[in-house]
């Protein structure tokens, strides 16, 4: 499953179900959630904007690479778009592999790559303002 969804629609259990595989003994799941602080400033919410068609195709590329590079059977990645309150889910990545070590490596590779290649932008809201992340040099 590769998708962009409102955070409230993200169903972790069904994402995990989507990678179950009888020949895989390991599933690793990474869940990124909204933290309530960032460098001391209190975050009230995040807003995610995506270049949706390209984001989906970049997520699919990551899934394909993970299958090839780490012998994963199934890979699901769902990223939030729109508002995300503190504690809500920003991203879920689930990977099934025959053995456990590869599941961790695959999931970590997927989230690291997502941050570098997937056109999604995060705006942080504080009590006294907001800004796009990385908008300053």
């Amino acid at each position: 499953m590769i998708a962009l969804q409102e955070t409230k629609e993200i169903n972790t259990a069904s994402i995990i179900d989507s990678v179950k595989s009888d020949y895989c003994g390991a599933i690793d799941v990474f869940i990124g959630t909204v933290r309530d602080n960032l460098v001391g400033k209190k975050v009230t919410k995040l807003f995610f904007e995506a270049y949706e068609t390209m984001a989906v195709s970049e997520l699919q590329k990551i899934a394909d690479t993970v299958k090839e590079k780490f012998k994963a059977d199934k890979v699901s990645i769902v990223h939030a778009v729109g508002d995300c309150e503190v504690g809500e889910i920003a991203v879920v990545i689930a990977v099934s592999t025959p053995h456990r070590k590869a599941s961790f490596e695959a999931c970590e590779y997927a989230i690291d790559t997502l941050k570098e290649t997937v056109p999604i932008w995060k705006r942080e809201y504080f009590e006294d303002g907001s800004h796009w992340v990385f908008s300053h040099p």
Partner: protein
Amino acid sequence: MKILLFGITKDIIGSSTLDYTVDQTDLTSESLLELLKEKYPELSKLRSIALAVNGEHANGTEVISDKDEVALIPPMSGG
């Protein structure tokens, strides 16, 4: 051609798309990006700025025509 804008580039340019007419046959994505940076100097102050052409990260060599879907890609921050 409409150039798609996202995140901070929408704020810099003040719109969610930018009209651009390609008036040369050999305009590369690298040249287009340079032209946009000249027109909107604030883009150069970003940590990074790049183009996507037809939904793929541009490598600079793509030749751009009015039929292409082009997007400005400021520093990504998903996850």
